[in-house]
């Protein structure tokens, strides 16, 4: 059977499964649509959060980022998991007790202000739309690589599948498809990793393999990797970094941003009890950690495999001849994600760090520049081929990458559509709408959101690569502080909260735009985006944490010189702090 047929069976089979689940889990009421009826088991919810959270970026890109950056990019591992500690202790149980359907609804009620709710809706939509573009684009790429269809065509197929289960089933359909998608993606991610770990270290558990002995050389795996890459002029994989302030702030921004992302928060509204919200945060992190503990092992092992493929006889000997390159290099060359140019016409592949420091060494060996460019996103996707695994594993990876992209897209689309139908239409435009009318409005909003996301995914704005920073910056600087203060302070009032959100948001956006261009339009940046220009060495990607601090400071400052919140609001705060009486999300 051809690889194409195998991929088709795996991807088609997984899609059929999602659609069958959607038909089984059709939503009958707004409560079904927004919070899956409020009866999801905490372990089930934890698994759904895992799929919701782990996007195309986690599945495809993260291992590549770590492989390229080594220790410095551990920030992604800690940042994208540490946020769950904040969620479990600072937000999820209390928002579950509040017992309504959306994040802006809490902000609007707690700060007794339609404007606050509206600011929250805008933050939510900007953060979620920017995030969903990347998911749709990622799904399109996976389709074009594995099913040999045009990326736009692939995108439309993906959109139709999401449409069926998200519009029909709402949160209920999404929850149970996410459980299936989690299983698909985690199996797809770990199987190749286990085999690679076995081949390199003899240890079948990748996270243990990472710190084991490299079977061929007898050295610790990481020491062997360091030796090879430093011989070729690259930075050591495990070396410490100089700019610790930026590393701390970047990690903190990712953590706070994770805790403030609405599509993750609303998943905690689906469990029956407050205690379940706490447990499901723990389960979510267990399911996420299965991938996040495997990723750094995949990263170092894939990097080592790549280097030993190019330098089979060691770094001191001549690299491999181009005509003898393995078949996976040939296959990925077709996609343009691996590029080779024989700069010194010796018919061999020179892969090294083309810097001034290494220039003398390179010249003495007759090298005329680095000749192989490998797109870091292919590491995970090419893993089964690098490890010589059978073709069904490749089919599994294709289905897994799509599961990661689609499950996150569906969660984001639900957050967007519920903000529109519940917060804008029912909350502001037509408060007297019937449950049936609101359900229809929610489905129409979802359909429109899918069309917009598909269009933007097919025609990504030039800033697609920067959007993750924007989404995390917004969530960290605006939503997280407002939610936390709403629960932990009775003193913060409407004026304080709105000023805080706007100040945090404005500061963060301005800092990002100054370096990345206003609205990310190329050429409109005021300062070049290089470390020398950053204030105190803080990168625009790390600024969300500072924006959050500003939000807290302004909100407390202004609240302390303005009036107390009304008595019933202080009682609302009191009530969200105590679990008793949380049965079922409240209809109103």
């Amino acid at each position: 059977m051809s690889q194409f047929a195998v991929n088709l069976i795996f991807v088609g089979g997984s899609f059929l499964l999602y659609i069958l689940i959607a038909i089984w889990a059709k939503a009958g009421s707004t409560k079904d649509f927004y919070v899956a009826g409020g009866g999801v088991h905490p372990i089930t919810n934890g698994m759904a959060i895992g799929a919701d959270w782990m996007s195309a970026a986690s599945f495809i890109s993260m291992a590549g980022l770590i492989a390229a950056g080594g220790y410095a990019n551990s920030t992604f591992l800690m940042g994208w998991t540490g946020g769950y500690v904040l969620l479990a202790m600072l937000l999820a149980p209390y928002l579950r007790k509040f017992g309504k359907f959306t994040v802006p609804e809490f902000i609007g009620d707690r700060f007794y202000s339609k404007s606050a709710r509206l600011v929250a809706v805008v933050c939510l939509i900007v953060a979620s739309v920017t995030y969903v573009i990347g998911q749709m684009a990622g799904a399109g790429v996976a389709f074009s690589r594995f099913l040999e269809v045009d990326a736009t065509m692939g995108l439309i197929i993906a959109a139709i599948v999401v449409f069926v289960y998200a519009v029909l089933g709402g949160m209920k359909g999404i929850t149970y498809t996410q459980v299936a998608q989690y299983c698909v993606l985690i199996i797809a991610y770990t199987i190749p990793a286990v085999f690679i770990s076995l081949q390199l270290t003899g240890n079948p558990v990748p996270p243990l393999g990472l710190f084991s002995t490299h079977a061929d050389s007898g050295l610790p795996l990481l020491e062997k990797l360091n030796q090879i890459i430093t011989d070729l002029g690259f930075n050591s994989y495990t070396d410490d970094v100089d700019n610790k302030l930026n590393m701390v702030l970047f990690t903190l921004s990712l953590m706070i941003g994770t805790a403030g992302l609405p599509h993750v928060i609303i998943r905690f509204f689906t469990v029956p009890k407050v205690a379940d919200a706490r447990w499901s945060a723990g389960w979510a992190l267990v399911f996420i950690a299965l991938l996040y503990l495997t990723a750094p092992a995949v990263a170092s092992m894939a990097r080592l495999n790549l280097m030993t493929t190019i330098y089979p006889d060691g770094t001191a000997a001549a690299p491999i001849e181009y005509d003898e390159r393995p078949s996976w290099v040939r296959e990925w060359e077709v996609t343009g994600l691996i590029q080779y140019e024989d700069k010194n016409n010796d018919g061999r592949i020179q892969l090294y760090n083309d810097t001034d420091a290494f220039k003398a060494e390179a010249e003495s060996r007759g090298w005329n520049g680095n000749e192989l460019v490998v797109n870091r996103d292919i590491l995970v996707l090419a893993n089964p081929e690098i490890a010589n695994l059978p073709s069904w594993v490749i089919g599994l990876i294709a289905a897994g990458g799509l599961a990661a992209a689609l499950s996150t897209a569906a969660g984001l689309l639900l957050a967007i559509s519920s903000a529109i139908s519940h917060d804008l239409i029912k909350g502001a435009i037509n408060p007297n709408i019937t449950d049936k009318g609101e359900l229809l409005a929610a489905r129409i909003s979802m359909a429109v959101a899918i069309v917009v996301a598909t269009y933007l995914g097919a025609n990504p704005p030039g800033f697609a690569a920067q959007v993750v920073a924007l989404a995390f910056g917004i969530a960290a600087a605006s939503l997280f502080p407002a939610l936390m203060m709403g629960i932990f302070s009775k003193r913060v009032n409407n004026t304080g909260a709105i000023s805080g959100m706007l100040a945090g948001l404005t500061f963060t956006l301005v800092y990002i735009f100054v370096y990345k261009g206003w609205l990310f339009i190329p050429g409109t940046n005021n300062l070049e985006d290089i470390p020398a220009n950053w204030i105190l060495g803080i990168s625009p990607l790390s600024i969300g944490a500072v924006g959050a601090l500003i939000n807290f400071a302004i909100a407390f400052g202004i609240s302390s010189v303005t009036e107390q919140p009304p008595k019933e609001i202080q009682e609302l705060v009191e009530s969200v702090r105590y679990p008793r009486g949380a049965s079922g999300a409240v209809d109103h």
Partner: protein
Amino acid sequence: MSGHSYDSANYWKANLRLIIGSLIIWALVSYGFAILLRPMLAGIAIGGTDLGFWFAQQGSILTFIALIFHYAWRMNKIDEKFGVHEE
């Protein structure tokens, strides 16, 4: 929700104490051991590198999981002690 019979002020204090303790450990393993204090742990070798690297790539994640489950378990006890647990 006024007129509750339980000791709400002390319940909230117990929750805050538990959160603060947990977040100190949360910060210590990630911002501490994995980043700022890494040079101090450089002497402790593990698998070709040092303990700080292990905390950055594995140790902090494992600690986060333990922290959340510990918090959920302790809070259930505290909920019951103060009589605010769900029926």
